[in-house]
């Protein structure tokens, strides 16, 4: 079991934007749960406000965003800002989906994401990365 002191690491897996491709989000959510994390999945078609609100209410340590619609450069910074406005600056931001490399670099450089995973990453790479941060 993955724990910070006495508390399990809590992860919000979120699907912001309008695309309905939830295969990746659901496989990753289940992989994280099987690896011992506490996982909350938002379901589809979430607005940035809804994602930030759920992150706050669920008091999560990690927000994982799955975006396959090409709207990542709009959505990720908005969610990051709303999290910061909610006082959740230290949440680990992880993004997956169809994110071209230069976009991934920019998201990380501007501090909007801590890590971007590409298609084809083994589940162990993702769970291993998050474990290494706690």
């Amino acid at each position: 079991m993955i724990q910070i002191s006495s508390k399990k690491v809590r992860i919000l897996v979120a699907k912001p934007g309008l695309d309905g491709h939830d295969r990746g989000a659901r496989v990753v959510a289940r992989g994280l749960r099987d690896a011992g994390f506490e996982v909350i999945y938002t379901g589809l078609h979430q607005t940035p406000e809804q994602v930030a609100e759920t992150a706050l209410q669920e008091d999560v340590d990690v927000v994982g965003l799955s975006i396959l619609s090409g709207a990542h450069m709009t959505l990720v910074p908005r969610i990051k800002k709303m999290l910061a406005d909610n006082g959740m600056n230290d949440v680990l931001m992880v993004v997956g989906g169809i994110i071209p490399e230069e976009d991934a670099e920019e998201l990380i450089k501007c501090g909007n994401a801590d890590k971007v995973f590409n298609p084809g990453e083994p589940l162990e790479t993702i769970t291993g990365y998050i474990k290494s941060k706690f």
Partner: protein
Amino acid sequence: MDKDKLDRIAEKKKRWQEEAATARERSEPFMTVSGRPVGALYTPLDNADLDYEKDLGFPGSYPYTRGVQDNMYRGRVWTMRQFSGFGDAYDSNNRYRYLLEQGQTGLSVAFDMPTIMGYDSDSERSLGEVGRCGVAIDSLEDMEILFDQIPLDRVTTSMTINGPAAILWCMYLANAEKQGVSLDKVGGTIQNDILKEYIAQKSWIFPPEPSMRLITDIFSFAADHVPRWNTISISGYHIREAGSTAAQELAFTLADGFAYVEAGIQAGLNVDRFAPRLSFFFNAHIDFFEEICKYRAARRIWARRMKEKYGATDERSLKMRFHTQTAGCSLTAQEPENNIVRTALEALSAVLGGTQSLHTNSMDEVLALPSEKAVKIALRTQQVIAYESGAANTIDPLAGSYFVEALTDQLEAEAEAYFRRIDELGGVLPAIDQGFFQQEIADAAYDYQRAVDREDLVVVGVNRYNTSEKVQIDLLKIDPAVEEKQVRRLKKLKESRDNDAVARSLAALKKSAAGSDNLIPKIMDAVRVYATEGEIVAALKEIFGEYREKPLF
């Protein structure tokens, strides 16, 4: 084959098995991409019950296992139909005209997410999504631009649209009228398959009941006015992309198909009045033989049930016609050029399985929308299969293969087993409500990922022969200015159109939605006066409400 002969083969097979068992085998499990175990050798023993006339027959004849046309590709090769759309209507119109010049024979429109979800480009929900993964269409004006200089009486168009299918279809028809093309000359397809949205693709708007009503309204309107239109494309593609197995794709798609047939019959339509215009859409995944067998089994199941259970007598109602797209989910971001090879194999399976039309994915689609060069290679792949490989010379060339016939039978039996389970749950809609399909697919997707992670399934360049080279490939970029431009044009339209006429048309639509009239003429009236998609959807939401899913994983 007589029993003595089969007994002798069984005896010899046993001896062969004993000898083969002493040889070393590779360590990976021998299974399809769906996790189905595959035997080392198939023989007449596996086809002992196969009855040629009953189970296979001849092309163009019941049960159509060998194909729906008498002469298949010897008459005309399949329609090469590349799915495409991006940016605004001007950008996509350019791409369509390019594809037609390159020898493509039909169009297939990809809409952006706001259009698919029923939002206008100026909606708060559309921010960052306009023109990103398809073309942005808000009103009839955009549709006019999209098909500028493309004659709608000569080119057929497929539109991947579901929740708001009726609206986009009406825009297409209204545009045809403006081009001077009468509706009985217009041909094409709308996807219009809401059941698989709830099951897999997850782009829904309204709840199931009003959604099914819109669909049967379309069936009825098309039967009267647009006889060449395929009113629905019952889709396994997205079910497979969401992670299902081949057998689940087959079973769930056909179950959806039968649910639409039942809905049409319940709406008072004669089955032979609308069933001839039902079409299907399947995935072509990487497991070559399993896919070919899936198409063959699909035709046979459809024909049998339509005849035996639903009493269809028009043979067009019994013939399953389908479009195929190669599997996006089989493509890899690593070494994307390898995707050309994957796509070629998948396309060949669709052709050997007797598809009526085909989209081949571009090698870069796992990274972005396809570049012009990548699309051209994808189209050329089809042309090489059609005109160089010899695959289109003879009909259903793999029939009679012990393996192919055994696997076709097995897939049919698995689909029948799923139909029984769905019946036990009360039918397709109750099964959706109970999350049955969603959970089956989620489980299969997870099993697949675990199999890849364990290397039970090999993905070249990903979990084997991984060189971690940086991808060097030119990607199509969507200019963020597209969104601003589209929003500006929409604003101008809203200022210049007859807003009283728009308000009147929307009020009339709501009134009909609350009653039981066919809604298509009302939607036609609204699009003709340039009511936007978002306005029409919003009006219908007031009456119909919205669908919500219980999130599960």
